[in-house]
């Protein structure tokens, strides 16, 4: 591949890179998509929720052909106590039919299918190839050096979709080394369980799915969440916490995962399910304030490499796809102008920050940080909600008004009235 110069080289065949390669190839550009795994998806991990809207913009009615698991009709939120849970959620049949809202997916299958779409559009996929560094000449990225013999390849634009660790972005000085509070470490398992049993346990009909986000005792007070997602005939269960919180607590991630699996509120859902795969991965959690430099001369950054994850709403792969698409659209304009300077490519950054991606990240820019610095939300309020519900719904001859009083005073007892009001105001402020 030494002498050929591509229009675009995309590093990483995940949602961001493949979306970029697909969009650019559809526009007629000459695209090389480089993946270090044996196949696209071999290195990729996700809890499992894929949103419909942003993929539909790339592949209309993809649900008729893509290997999706179940459309989600119910999203539950559990506030978990040690031996209890406070359950909230929403289930709606509008999500059970096209165009759907979101789906569970298994990434190894999904990413291969998605990369196949880019190849159908004309992109060239090369797997089992690590990009070791960007080739830079006169302040401009002109290609990449791979770990293949004679592995230098050249292009007008290099798109870094190389994932959360983005060693290439670091090489270019686009970001400093990540800090432990900027990433979450997620450990998960895929557990095989026959479809009928999943449907019975989660009150579903065939081709309907349920997601459960679990706050509180599942992370033993560390900032993070656990989750339980239904696939066709398997369940994804996992727990993700900030790396800084995990380090501080001195817990092993797989011990925390075992704790979640054996929790009395969770155990019945996964009873008799057969472990099929264990996986760990980092999630960028730094949000808006951790977004690196996104554009340089001849280079752009997309997806996890650009820290595009909305941890509060567990969105990431959709933001990755949008970033990849927007990058490709800018490259097409750059190609017409034959100008691949930072100035020209900067319209990608502008479009991204004006889209839902930039605006949502901006909205929640202080959220993760706040919950990490004020652990009372996880350590005090979630147990309080459980105690309050237990108190209120236990019939023991106490008049209801007395019960209410007792609950209110126990709320203020722990932290004091003023601190409680401050806590509530702070939470409202970072979420509003």
């Amino acid at each position, binding site marked *: 591949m030494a002498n050929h110069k591509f229009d675009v080289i995309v590093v990483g065949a995940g949602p961001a890179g493949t979306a970029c390669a697909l969009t650019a190839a559809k526009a007629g550009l000459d695209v090389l998509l480089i993946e*270090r*795994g*044996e196949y696209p*998806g*071999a*290195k*990729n*991990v*996700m809890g499992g929720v894929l949103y419909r809207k942003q993929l539909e913009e790339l592949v209309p009615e993809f649900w008729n052909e893509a290997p999706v698991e179940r459309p989600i009709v119910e999203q539950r939120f559990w506030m978990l106590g040690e031996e209890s849970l406070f359950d909230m959620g929403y289930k709606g049949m509008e999500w059970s039919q096209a165009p759907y809202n979101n789906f569970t997916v*298994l*990434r*190894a*299958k999904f990413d291969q299918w998605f990369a196949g779409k880019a190849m159908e559009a004309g992109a060239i996929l090369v*797997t*089992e*190839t*690590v990009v070791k560094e960007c080739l830079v000449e006169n302040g401009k990225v002109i290609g990449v050096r*791979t*770990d*293949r013999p004679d592995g230098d390849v050249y292009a007008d634009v290099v798109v870094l979709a190389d994932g*959360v*660790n983005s*060693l290439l972005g670091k090489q270019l000085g686009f970001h400093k*080394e*990540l*800090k*432990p509070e900027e*990433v979450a*470490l997620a*450990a*998960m*398992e*895929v*557990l095989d369980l026959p479809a009928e049993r999943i449907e019975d346990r989660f009150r579903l009909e065939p081709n309907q799915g349920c997601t459960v986000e679990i706050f509180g005792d599942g992370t033993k007070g560390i900032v993070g969440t656990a989750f339980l997602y239904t696939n066709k005939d*398997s369940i*994804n269960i996992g727990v993700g916490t900030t*790396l800084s919180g*995990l*380090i501080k607590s*001195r*817990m*092993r*991630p*797989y011990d925390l995962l075992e704790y979640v*699996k*054996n929790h009395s509120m969770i*155990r019945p859902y*996964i*009873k*008799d*399910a*057969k*472990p*099929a*795969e*264990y*996986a*760990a*991965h*980092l999630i960028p959690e730094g949000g808006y304030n951790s977004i690196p430099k996104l554009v340089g001369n001849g280079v752009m950054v997309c997806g996890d490499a650009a820290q595009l994850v909305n941890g509060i709403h567990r969105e990431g792969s959709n933001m990755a796809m949008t970033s990849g698409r927007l990058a490709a659209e800018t490259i097409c304009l750059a190609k017409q102008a034959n100008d691949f300077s930072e100035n020209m490519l900067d319209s990608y950054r502008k479009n991204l920050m004006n889209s839902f991606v930039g605006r949502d990240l901006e909205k929640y820019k202080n959220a993760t940080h706040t919950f990490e610095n004020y652990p009372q939300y996880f350590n005090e309020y979630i147990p309080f909600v459980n105690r309050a519900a237990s108190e209120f719904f236990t019939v023991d001859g106490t008049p209801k008004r007395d019960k209410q009083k007792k609950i209110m005073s126990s709320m203020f007892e722990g932290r004091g009235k003023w601190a409680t009001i401050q806590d509530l105001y702070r939470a409202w402020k970072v979420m509003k």
Partner: protein
Amino acid sequence: MSAVPKTNTLEDKQYTLRFKCDTESHLQVLDYDVCANQCPDKLCTLFCPGEVYKWEGTRMQVGYEGCHECGSCRIGCPHENIKWEYPKGGHGIVFRMA
């Protein structure tokens, strides 16, 4: 408890995975003396999801073969004492589902 999936140990969990091992490590401890003398907590032996790092009394052992390539050790090492690269193309962990 018996009804819960019995992958209680990390060994059981790792056994569900496919690894295409390289012959050389993609993870390097830069200075073994730092682990021995300046790092009493050896937190990498706790937070690494694949238990790649094991303290063997006098020296840090790096079992790179079971690495998930997550990057936690590089970010979490308080002494920035780990050189972290990707395994050679096509090598390392191969997820079949997740």
